[in-house]
């Protein structure tokens, strides 16, 4: 089975994240780039499916050249090879154009199963899996906490507010996963060494037959008009206990609708 895992490099959530003042896009140089956490679960699930059913795991990422660190991480975990879609024309792409660019690339490299994390920690749109499936004309199985493959059938448990739905489709398909699905492995030192020798194919938009006028900041359907830094945290409310501390604390909690 030919499994493609889409991974994304995001700014480390532990560092201060900023937008660029010039074009109001994410400032990718301001913070350390790390693999989006949910993408690790997607890689782990792809590796498990490969271990159980055979096949090959390809990592696909769209991002600037420094996103190779994220590719290496996925390869160190055990993926077989990678495709890196990198082109200045892609800068500023929104979810819609990102799904177009990735779909074009997926059509070119081929797949039986596409797996991705259900959202990224930077943009957090959570719509990419659905958009990708639509563009590829395949079933979409999103928010999976469990994935089973049986021949050409794929079944997932889709997390819902009330529990889960069992969703079944036939391959090829697009699956997005949530963190309940597994526990991602750590790469081994040997895996890290081996990853340096695994093939990484770099594609530009022309290679993947991506139309320049459908990607990038200029063709984005949404626009960031204005942004402001989050206000610094205000000083807390101090309740002095003069025998009525309990009542005052309860009053405060009630005012915030906690009780």
């Amino acid at each position, binding site marked *: 089975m030919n499994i493609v895992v889409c991974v994304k490099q995001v700014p480390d959530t532990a560092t201060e994240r900023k937008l660029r003042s010039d074009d109001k896009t994410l400032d990718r140089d301001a913070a350390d780039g790390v693999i989006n956490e949910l993408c690790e679960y997607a890689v782990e699930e792809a590796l498990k499916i490969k271990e159980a059913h055979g096949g090959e795991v390809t990592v696909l990422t769209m991002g600037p050249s420094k996103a190779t660190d994220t590719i290496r991480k996925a390869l160190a975990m055990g993926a077989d090879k990678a495709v890196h879609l990198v082109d200045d024309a892609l800068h500023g792409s929104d979810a819609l154009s990102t799904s177009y660019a990735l779909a074009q690339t997926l059509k070119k490299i081929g797949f039986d199963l596409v797996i991705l994390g259900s959202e990224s920690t930077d943009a957090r749109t959570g719509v990419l899996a659905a958009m990708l499936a639509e563009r590829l004309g395949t079933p979409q199985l999103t928010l999976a906490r469990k994935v089973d493959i049986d021949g050409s059938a794929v079944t997932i448990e889709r997390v819902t507010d009330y529990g889960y739905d069992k969703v079944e489709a036939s391959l090829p398909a697009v699956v997005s996963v949530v963190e309940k699905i597994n526990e991602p492995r*750590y*790469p*081994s*030192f040997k895996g*890290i*060494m081996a990853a*340096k020798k695994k093939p990484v194919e770099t594609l530009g938009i022309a290679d993947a037959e991506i139309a320049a006028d459908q990607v990038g900041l200029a063709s984005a359907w949404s626009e960031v008009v204005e942004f402001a830094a989050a206000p610094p945290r205000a000083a807390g409310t101090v309740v002095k206990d003069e025998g009525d501390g309990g009542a005052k604390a309860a009053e405060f909690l009630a005012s915030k609708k906690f009780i």
Partner: protein
Amino acid sequence: MSVDRVLPTPEAHDLLDLVRELAAKEIVPRAAADEAASRFPRDVFSLLGASGLLGLPYPEEYGGAAQPYEVYLQVIEELAAAWLAVGLGVSVHTLSCFPVAAYGSDAQRAELLPAMTGGELLGAYCLSEPHSGSDAAALTTRAVPGADGYVVDGVKAWITHGGVADFYTLMARTSGDGARGISCFHVPAGVDGLSSGTPERKMGMRSSPTAQVRFDGVRLSPDALVGSPGEGFRIAMAALDGGRLGIAACAVGVAQAAFDAASAYARERRQFGSPLTEFQGLAFMLADMATSIAAARALYLEAARLRDAGRPYGTQAAMAKLFATDMCMRVTTDAVQVLGGYGYVEDFPVERHMREAKVLQIVEGTNQIQRLVIGRAIAKGSIG
């Protein structure tokens, strides 16, 4: 800990990144609780094994990672900073693999080493006995040669991983004459007649079992012998040279962890309207701590580079062990002082570090023995 390290290769940086990630996510969060419960973290060693960290300095063809000591020891330092029981455990395991790796026959290396360094097995090193510590050549455990191998009888003491190890590297007497009558053996844990005592109730490192290991008529095949008959003491001393560097690295790690806790506290804690770091009495104390940690790190790395270059390094290893562990005792004691009352309670890690430090002045040759080793080298004119 964010030590700025100069490493010889990009792969060494990747390795240290991996170790720091494992330490932060899988080791640090549980160290205090497992220490309090005297719970051996076998699963942490399994994880380190799966990550390829239990055979770092050994050849790749035998399951190792072919890393120089300069890199391997910095891994030990990072692990010990997270949890000494783990850092020291990896050091002892690596030491236990050394005799087969360095003195074993080709057949022994091919048969035994991949499993020993591959991560699934954990080793223990059996040299000390109840009545033979610093005077290691006085050991009395006997391996009597017979027609079909050896029969071993005796008791080993202070054995790290005693009772939980998968193999024991054993030094036993095969003939009567002093150091030259000692031979080295590889003993799988499952053999009949091998048993371990109740783990010692230690001042620190309580999660790492230290126990007596009893050999009661243990039968070993002839190919359990590592090296030549009578070569055991030489093998043991060579193994200890490397082991001492491991302990030096552990000491630097523990000291660094205590310093990190103390300096972070001193920056935050305010008295008389100022952070503690503004008071010269404490600032100078912290400055001395940081300086002595850096000096100890430089000293063990210098010895490691000698070893990696194939040069004699035993005296330098003794110096590094002596200096780093005495430094660690002083720095961890001072770290408790910096935190004051908070340093003396279990809510902060520095009291644990202080208890951990003490054992490092004792193991792999007491610091008095280290001075003896260095003194002999001076007498011979080989240093200074």
